[in-house]
């Protein structure tokens, strides 16, 4: 026994360390964390714990729309952006990898809402800062006022009045009362209108103006037309929304509604305005107009939630890069002290439109609002950040696994592997007797070492990895069987047990080596291809099988050999029949 003490000691040390590693859920060595919360502290792949596997490809194009490859700096920036965005969303820690030159693999373990993650990662998000003009007034082209041909007073026509329109009239800031448009047969309470005929040129201009007024009703901040009517002693000025102007068919005539609180009746109006009525179009009051100023998400350096220093209320901090700082300074200088706003759009959807108190020249600012909550602020910050994806990306592969399905696969795999292992042990002990028991011990130690190595190398266990592990158990068993068969043969030629162990082992070794090396070659090639492709399933398989095969060789070389040699020098060796398998004695 003294001759083998080195290998005995080595086996004991390896097995003890493995056992400690396997049965310690989590530990850290030199600042590196090992283990996890899963069974035996193993790292579980997405197919076993649930989650999303997303592969994105760069969609970078030059001005002519031709795809161009992104630089590695751009891809690194992309990784950082996505990482930060997902991290701060509370969706868990993403695992982001670059595949090749223009692809990203984003893995989101344990995520329950993959669609939210996808929208967060954003495919074409584009952030734009626009100058929002409010209450500007544009003068009306003279040709309209010069093109007025005929003006008369009558009841305002009522062709389009619908619920919708009356809703808008109550909402709007325009000067018109609520009783305006509804189907009212009593002439006295019907609104009055000024009917104006225009010349050809003026008519088409009024039509354009009218369309613009109508269109502006689709978004907040409606445009209004400022009109003044005069006649007799009267001089009334009012503002009209697009709804309160009606084109009268076929006569190049428009009717402009007079706000109903102006006159009590048609007679009242006629008497006050007299026969000679004049109308003048003063100006177009622009409710809101957004102008692109070339400040985009690319100019934004950071956006992050914070707290106001005095009020402690949630705010959004924003910081611009050099170019952005210049543009932002220009914008804020122009806007400060007016009612204009900065309108921020993400993919043409308005996010927020803050006003500006004073010019901001330093490129750093914060946004606050009475409606801000912690959630709102953090979501908005994320969305602001998302607008500056350095490279546009598109989704080319997605694999979502529900956590329930993952847990189900995991427990079933454990169950099946356990039963399988048990059956192997039963078979080996029944057939090979004492060596079978040794092989079972070696197999148990083999499993222990494999799990320990998985933990130390942070190998992620996937379904395909479990398959590979089963195959590697098969190979480990095979190595033992090869040794035992040779041992049996050597015993039959009349050698002593310790001689038979040595010779049997030496003769079995080339087969073990060659078969395992050819498997390793396959694994290596698989790993290389999977790495190019980002095929995590195949990669998991290759890694697990490689680890299994290498340890299977070590286990055969060290454990089985050591146990057999030890037993050869003990009392068990006296009973040689224990080493000869049951049955098949006649075979050669």
């Amino acid at each position, binding site marked *: 026994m003294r001759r083998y003490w080195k290998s005995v000691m080595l086996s004991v040390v390896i097995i003890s360390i493995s056992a400690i590693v396997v049965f310690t859920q989590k530990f850290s060595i030199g600042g590196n964390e090992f283990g996890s919360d899963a069974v035996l502290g193993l790292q579980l792949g997405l197919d076993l714990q649930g989650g999303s596997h997303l592969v994105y490809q760069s969609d970078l194009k030059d001005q002519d729309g031709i795809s161009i490859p992104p630089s590695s700096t751009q891809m690194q920036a992309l990784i950082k952006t996505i990482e930060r965005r997902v991290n701060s969303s509370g969706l868990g820690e993403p695992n982001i990898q670059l595949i090749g030159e223009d692809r990203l693999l984003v893995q989101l373990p344990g995520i329950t809402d993959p669609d939210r993650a996808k929208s967060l990662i954003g495919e074409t998000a584009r952030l734009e800062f626009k100058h929002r003009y409010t209450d500007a007034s544009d003068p009306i082209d003279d040709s309209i006022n010069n093109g007025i041909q005929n003006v008369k007073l009558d009841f305002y026509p009522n062709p389009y009045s619908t619920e919708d329109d009356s809703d808008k009239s109550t909402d709007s800031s325009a000067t018109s009362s609520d009783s305006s448009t509804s189907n009212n047969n009593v002439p006295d309470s019907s609104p009055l209108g000024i009917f104006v005929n225009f010349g050809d040129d003026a008519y088409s201009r009024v039509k354009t103006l009218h369309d613009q007024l109508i269109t502006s009703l689709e978004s907040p901040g409606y445009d209004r037309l400022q009109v003044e009517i005069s006649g007799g002693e009267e001089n009334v000025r009012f503002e009209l929304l697009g709804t309160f102007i009606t084109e009268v068919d076929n006569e190049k005539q428009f009717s402009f509604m007079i706000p109903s609180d102006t006159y009590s009746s048609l007679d009242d109006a006629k008497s006050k305005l007299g026969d000679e009525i004049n109308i003048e179009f003063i100006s177009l009051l622009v409710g809101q107009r957004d102008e692109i100023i070339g400040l985009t998400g690319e100019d934004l350096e950071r956006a992050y939630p914070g707290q106001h220093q005095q009020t402690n209320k949630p705010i959004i901090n924003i910081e611009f890069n050099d170019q952005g700082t210049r543009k932002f300074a220009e914008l804020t200088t122009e806007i400060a002290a007016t009612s204009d706003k900065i309108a921020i759009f993400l993919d043409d959807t308005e996010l927020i439109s803050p006003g500006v108190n004073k010019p901001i020249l330093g490129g750093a600012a914060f946004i606050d609002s009475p409606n801000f909550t912690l959630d709102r602020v953090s979501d908005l910050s994320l969305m602001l950040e998302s607008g500056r994806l350095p490279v546009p990306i598109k989704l080319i592969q997605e694999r979502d696994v529900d956590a329930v399905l993952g847990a189900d696969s995991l427990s079933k795999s454990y169950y099946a592997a356990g039963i399988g292992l048990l*059956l192997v042990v039963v078979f080996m002990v029944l057939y090979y007797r004492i060596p079978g028991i040794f092989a079972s011990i070696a197999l148990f130690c083999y499993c222990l070492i494999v799990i320990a190595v998985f933990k130390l190398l942070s190998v992620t266990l996937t379904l395909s990895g479990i398959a590979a592990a089963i195959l590697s158990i098969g190979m480990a068993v095979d190595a033992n069987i090869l040794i035992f068969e040779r041992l049996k043969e050597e015993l039959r030629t009349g050698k002593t047990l310790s001689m038979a162990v040595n010779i049997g082992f030496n003769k079995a070794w080339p087969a073990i080596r060659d078969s395992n090396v050819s498997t390793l070659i396959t694994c290596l090639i698989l790993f290389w291809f999977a790495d190019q492709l980002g*095929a995590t399933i195949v990669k998991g398989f290759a890694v697990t099988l490689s680890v299994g095969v290498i340890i299977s060789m070590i286990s055969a070389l060290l454990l089985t050999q050591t146990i057999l040699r030890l037993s050869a020098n003990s009392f068990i060796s006296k009973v040689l029949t224990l080493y000869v398998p049951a049955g098949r004695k006649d075979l050669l």
Partner: protein
Amino acid sequence: MNLSGNKIWFFSFSSVIILIGMVFIFMGGLKPGIDFTGGSSLTIKLSSYDSSENIREALMGTEFESSVVQNFGDSTFFIRTFDINDQEKEKLVNILDSLTPEKDDLQILSFDLISPLIARETVVNAFWAVFAATIGIFIYIWWAFRSVPNPVRFSVASIIALLHDTLIVLGVFAILGISLDFEVNTMFIIAFLTVLGYSVNDSIVVLDRLRSNIIDYSGIRLSDVVNLSISQTFGRSLNTSITLLVTLIAMYLFGGDTLKPFILVLIVGLISGTYSSIAIATQILVYWDERKKKTV
């Protein structure tokens, strides 16, 4: 055991099996899954629901009409369709959700989306991976058997055995494809590569014994040395296969439904691999040897 004398029977037996498999392959038995065609697949659980017929009906007249719907049992259904975008996915989920009156009855177990671009690459890469692995093994065996004369025949023999197992597995899977709608996906490729690895592993063990016997018994006819080697390794081949088979059958019976086709490939490959190491790889060597002697 005079296995070499019966080699013609082994070759014929294998040829028949492979031919049957080929017929099924040409009948379109190997149904490529979305991994190779591009598209999306959805595995859902609709408790209180047990027929895929109603799902098919519900998809009639929509853009998902041509979807493949399979019942996995246990109220679990598999739906394969084209590569849908987010809006289309939402629409599909809504259709499925409206199948049962209860709210939140629908549970999406897994969703897969493969763009045609990725699918094309997968096909090309799977092919090259298998090809490169084969070349790598060929060269290694050539090198490992350098101590015996004409080592390249060992490489050729193990690659032919490997090809044999490959064709058998493909054939059996084509039969399963026709009868049970099994699909060829990434998991299949992995099972396939596992079989590849096992087949070579098995052949090497037998060939290794042949290697040492050729040196020990030089002067004896190769067919006798082959018979002797097979007899010597027969116990090992059988026992290894039995232990692995036992594990795999346990996996098949107790593992999840999603793993079943995968395990089935392994079981077929394992049986074929054991058979080919005895009846194909070594017999090719004997055949080669006898042919050579005749021509000399």
